[in-house]
């Protein structure tokens, strides 16, 4: 056993003045319990200031105590003299956290802390966390540092938070920064007048103020004190800063608890609602469409194998004719895309909300784009074949008008999302609306303009291969007649040619895109 040395016969437990003495800063029971367990007499001393309390532990006239949250950190940077060892959890709470609150009289017109300019403010002792350190930091953050005397009418410093509350009630100060623990206590015990104070600001959480002892105490003795305190809730009713304590816990446990109080699930309930509703809609659709995946697998593989067998090998006997038709298809797509671009520029500009001259024109342009997008080019081509006869022209017109609807929508969206800075700069230099369009709008959308046009060209070539089916020119007519005659080997050769064409076009367009952007 380590030999207990000298001055431990009489200890002093010092308490910083966070509250008025009494129930809300009650260490009597804890000290009495310690006295009994340690078989030592302990003098409980309520100090008049945070600083005195702190110094008395530093100079050895007290050995343990309670100093608030910040005092020891502030004066004892390296933590050499004072060691925190336990922190109290108030009854009904999970962590020791509390906050600094800015309070005003409810009649006051101060709504937020920014309004404190030119007002008088009451703070606590310089070593109080919630009454000085935290409010100082928060005020600095909004550009009202308390060191600048000109900002405030007056700054008062009072002994503790209860005093600060009294002053706000009396009206001798406009606002005060106090600890939430004192405020809650006051709120509970003053039901009648608790509407007369209003909280205008609540700081981030401050971790609870610990019990401390002098670091140079005998280690054996320190362990003993700590274990008695951590176990005390099993024997006595505990008190402390803020009222009745549930128990005292280890500092590290407290730190973890403090951090744990911030943990939230990585995925909120909204995500789960979203996923489960999506899954239910999906299952409803599958059931409604009477889709049977097992049947699909067993039946379709059988027939798919059969038709694939009949398609191979491809028959390239009239390759020359097919290539000629493919070229015609590309020409139709090319002309159709050109038509779409020409038509979509004015319609696109007019259907952008920020460019359209007025709402009426905007709605008309929008309606045009929606109308042409809503009619599939197949239908449009069928109608045009009836109107102007077989050949390439109905294909060109159908592709042109249908994809004009898409391009105009793309342009309009790009224009609506341009960077507004250059537009403002030109406006400030007195440019006209048309000048702004050509100098600030068009250069910004050029890269996506080219990208979109290439995409539409790519798409139109794919669609043009099908348009022949309704008689609007191109390779599609050949494809359909081969199907009708059950010449599946010819079908596969046409599919192959289409594939090669699309493959080449795709590479070409991504090459062009990489060059222009």
């Amino acid at each position, binding site marked *: 056993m380590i030999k207990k040395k000298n001055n431990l016969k009489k200890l002093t437990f010092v308490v910083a003045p966070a509250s008025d003495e009494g129930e809300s800063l009650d260490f009597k029971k804890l000290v009495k319990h310690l006295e009994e367990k340690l078989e030592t007499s302990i003098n409980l001393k309520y100090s008049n200031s945070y600083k005195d309390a702190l110094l008395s532990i530093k100079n050895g006239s007290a050995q343990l105590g309670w100093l608030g949250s910040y005092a020891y950190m502030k004066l004892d940077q390296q933590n050499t003299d004072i060691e925190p060892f336990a922190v109290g959890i108030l009854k009904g709470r999970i962590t020791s956290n509390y906050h600094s609150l800015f309070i005003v009289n409810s009649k006051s017109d101060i709504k937020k802390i920014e309004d404190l300019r030119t007002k008088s403010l009451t703070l606590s002792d310089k070593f109080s966390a919630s009454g000085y350190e935290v409010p100082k930091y928060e005020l600095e953050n909004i550009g009202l540092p308390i060191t600048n005397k000109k900002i405030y009418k007056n700054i008062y410093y009072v002994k503790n938070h209860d005093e600060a509350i009294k002053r706000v009630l009396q009206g001798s100060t406009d606002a005060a920064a106090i600890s939430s623990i004192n405020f809650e206590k006051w709120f509970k015990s003053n039901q009648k007048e608790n509407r007369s104070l209003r909280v205008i600001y609540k700081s981030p*959480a401050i971790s609870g103020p610990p019990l401390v002892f002098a670091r140079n105490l005998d280690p054996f003795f320190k362990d003993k004190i700590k274990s008695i305190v951590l176990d005390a809730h099993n024997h006595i009713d505990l008190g402390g800063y803020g009222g009745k304590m549930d128990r005292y816990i280890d500092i590290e446990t407290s730190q973890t608890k403090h951090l744990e109080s911030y943990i939230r699930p*990585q995925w909120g309930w909204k995500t789960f609602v979203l996923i489960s509703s999506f899954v239910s809609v999906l299952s409803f659709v599958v059931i409604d469409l009477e889709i049977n995946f097992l049947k699909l697998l067993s039946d379709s593989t059988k027939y798919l194998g059969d038709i694939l067998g009949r398609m191979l090998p491809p028959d390239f006997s009239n390759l020359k004719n097919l290539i000629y038709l493919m070229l015609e298809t590309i020409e139709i797509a090319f002309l159709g895309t050109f038509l779409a671009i020409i038509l979509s520029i004015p319609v696109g500009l007019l259907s952008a909300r920020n460019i359209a001259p007025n709402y009426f024109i905007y709605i008309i342009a929008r309606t045009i784009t929606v109308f042409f997008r809503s009619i599939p080019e197949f239908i449009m081509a069928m109608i045009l074949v009836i109107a102007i006869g077989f050949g390439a022209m109905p294909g060109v017109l159908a592709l042109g008008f249908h994809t004009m609807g898409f391009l105009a929508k793309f342009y309009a969206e790009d224009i609506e999302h341009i960077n507004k800075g250059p537009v403002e700069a030109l406006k400030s230099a007195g440019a006209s609306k048309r000048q702004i369009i050509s100098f600030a709008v068009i250069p910004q959308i050029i890269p996506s303009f080219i990208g979109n046009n290439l995409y539409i060209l790519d798409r139109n070539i794919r669609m043009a291969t099908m348009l022949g089916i309704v008689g609007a020119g191109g390779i599609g007519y050949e494809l359909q007649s081969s199907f009708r005659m059950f010449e599946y080997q010819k079908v596969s050769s046409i599919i192959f040619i289409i594939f090669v064409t699309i493959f080449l076009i795709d590479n070409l367009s991504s090459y062009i895109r990489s060059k222009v952007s």
Partner: protein
Amino acid sequence: MLLIKDLKKTFQNGTKALRGINLTVNAGEFVTILGPSGSGKTTLLRSINGLENIDSGKIVFGHRKIDNEYISYVQKKTGMIFQEYNLVNNLSSINNVLSGLLNSSSKFLSMFYLFTHKQKLQALQSLETVGLLDKAYSRVDQLSGGQRQRIGIARAIIKKPILLLADEPVASLDPRAANLILSLLKKICNEFNITIICNLHQVELAIKFSDRIIGLLDGSIMFDSSTKIIDTDYVQNIYREDNKGLTF
């Protein structure tokens, strides 16, 4: 802890970024590399953690020369913070900080942003160190520049590195935020004993916060001096804008 010997690097366009750098950095030091833009300080920093391949010379980290095999260990032990923060803007602060732990997390679970309780506590601890615990679940794009850089620092220190590389950490910040960030780095250097190599171009900040200043100009070291004995006028003079003799 870090030894750089005769380090050379020439870019493909012919720019000679580093022309033979010799440098030793001791554990726990706060070293500033000072130099105007284009002096090669970013290249130097990026060669240390393998973001840039070197042409010749060697870098020794701890007791071993950095090579292809060793570099992943070096990256594990090195944190980096960037001028433009390089955070994922539409993720929360805590998810950004947790991304610093991806190296040591379950590949499958982390794909779905799932982390262990311990890792979350580590992230919150990092956020508390940089003073932004209460912003843990705010999206990064709602924070100010200084706060974003503090998230960047939290992300860098969560894996408990022994070396922190800071590439112009305050170049996009106002003077007040810049002071705050550098004093935070200083605190991290002292309290966690993390070696810091920080690129700056502001002479006053370098003198105010670092232990040692290395002056870089045109890919070569001009001076290497403890801040205690540095000749301020000499340094200021080198980086004067109108110093034609030294422009390039």
